[in-house]
């Protein structure tokens, strides 16, 4: 099974990277861009009985290791 974990900075936490990307896009003529947020995505192949079991385990992985919950939030999808 494949899981996709998307990790983003929490709302309100400064995102220097997103800010810089937004700025660069403006300079390159993409003026229609407003807020930009940058994050990480981690794709995992995992053995699991079923989707629920996979989701529960990946959620645990995200909490323990993949996301820094002090400043980041995460989302798990099983595909």
């Amino acid at each position, binding site marked *: 099974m494949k899981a996709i974990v998307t990790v983003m*900075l*929490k709302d*309100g*936490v*400064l*995102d*220097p990277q997103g*800010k*810089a990307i937004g*700025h660069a896009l403006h300079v390159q003529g993409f003026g229609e861009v407003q807020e930009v947020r940058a994050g990480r995505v981690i794709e995992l192949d995992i053995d699991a009985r079923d989707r629920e079991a996979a989701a529960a385990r990946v959620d645990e992985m995200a909490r323990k290791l993949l996301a*820094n919950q*002090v*400043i980041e939030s995460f989302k798990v999808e099983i595909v």
Partner: protein
Amino acid sequence: MTARTVDAALAREFGLSNEEYERVLAIMGRTPSLTELGIFSVMWSEHCSYKSSRVWLKTLPTTAPWVIHGPGENAGVVDIGRGLAAIFKMESHNHPSFIEPYQGAATGVGGILRDVFTMGARPVANLNALRFGSPENPVTRRIVDGVVRGIGGYGNCVGVPTVGGEINFHPSFDGNPLVNAMTVGIARTDRIFLSAAAGIGNPVVYVGSRTGRDGIHGATMASAEFGADAEAKRPTVQVGDPFVEKLLIEACLELMATDAIVAIQDMGAAGLTSSSVEMAGKGGVGIELDLDHVPQRERGMTAYEMMLSESQERMLIVIRPDREDVARAIFDKWELDFAVIGHITETGHIVVKHRGVVEADIPLDPLAEQAPLYRRPLGDRVVPEPLGRVHDPIGTEAALLRLIGSPDIASRAWVWNQYDSTVGGRTVRRPGAADAAVVVVSEDDAGFDSTLALALTTDCTPRYVQACARTGGAQAVAEAYRNLCAVGATPLAVTDNLNFGNPERPEIMRQFADAIEGMGVACRALDFPVVSGNVSLYNETKNPDGTTTAILPTPAIGGLGVLEDANRAVGLSLAPGLSLVLIGE
């Protein structure tokens, strides 16, 4: 938050005691607004007011013929000859580094850099004094990793070499690591910038990053013990942007080469509040801010939030009105926000307006003069049991191996190999190469052939301070002095970072007072004055059983010396054929 009524209970949540709140009421002659209470609480926090430590700090020697500015400015300034000044200071970011090690350490480096370049200096070196918990504790590994990455991540990006520091491990730092960062910069002695505001009507300019809801109440948090509720305090974590800091350094130094600046101050702990209060207070003037003009990152911020935000990479500048365009052009070039957010007044008050409403109006003199000052009770000395006679159960060779392999002595290359130590082309002795780092400095920043150099070191052995705070304090100073001598430098001055437990505990206060006394004795004997520093108290961890454990007392000393000829700097590596001589007792 706005819905809360201001009363003694809320004041207590903000860290003000009942007596302190009474004093606020007396000064204001009315119940303060939420924003006003916020301003009092941060200005009167341990972090900003030094209320427990000030009486002791005053006993340290701070003068010498070569001292240009001692404690009281953003950083200490000493004359190093050839028309140059070294500007340096050490500062702690202990509590934030426990909550979020990477960002805590990174923003610590950012903060101390600003303290130095705000005075007109180009930063030329960073050092850091670190203490972590037991290496066996799994949490320690995570904290060490984050802190080291954070220091490197910030310092490497701004392009200031990290040239030295120290690391110790001890279980007392398990829940409260120490991250003390030191920056050294160089300026011309005739171009040093101070923070005292002047000139009624002069514009007050905000530059740098936008303000968000970062780290609100960070200054009061830095003055509170850590317990189970540390988790709940987490959303206050600030994120640093070393890229913006780099732009800010270049833009400020460019502006400082003009005659536009009247006064300048970085926004450190409690951001807008402490910078505006200190600038106006030192200048004996008033200041009026209109928060509508503050560059904001988030929507709907209140006056309270803006005044207490600890968003990073921001500066406040009072400029000459006829130079506004010059200044604006420089910040435009570096793509930084630039906004006139207020002006200097003759009222002697800080007045804060937001959306046409006066959110705060506080007389500055009493805010400063009636700030609490405590001579806290000193308890008995708590002295650990003597170690007794040393036995030799394992043999000299095994003992030597164990010593070399112990975390406190083992090579630190794994740390400094992550720090850029050569950027700038000034580093003569990198980490590990000598008892003190050596960097060359020059009359004009682009001067390429200079051999004038600074020697830099940080030192403290917390174990010694715990055994006898007076001797341990003196020893830390003496060790810094020796390390500077060992590379061939003439020691000039020190900065310090006094990390201790809860000052309301008499035995801790005793440690603190004794350590300062010892430092003072050594500094006087060596003609090695203290020109800047920082105090970090309440470094304790709550145990599950409700008791608290204080850290080992750690008065970290940052020493600075000068070498006339960097070619004569002495390192550690022994060339074959040389003799080894032991001197001293």
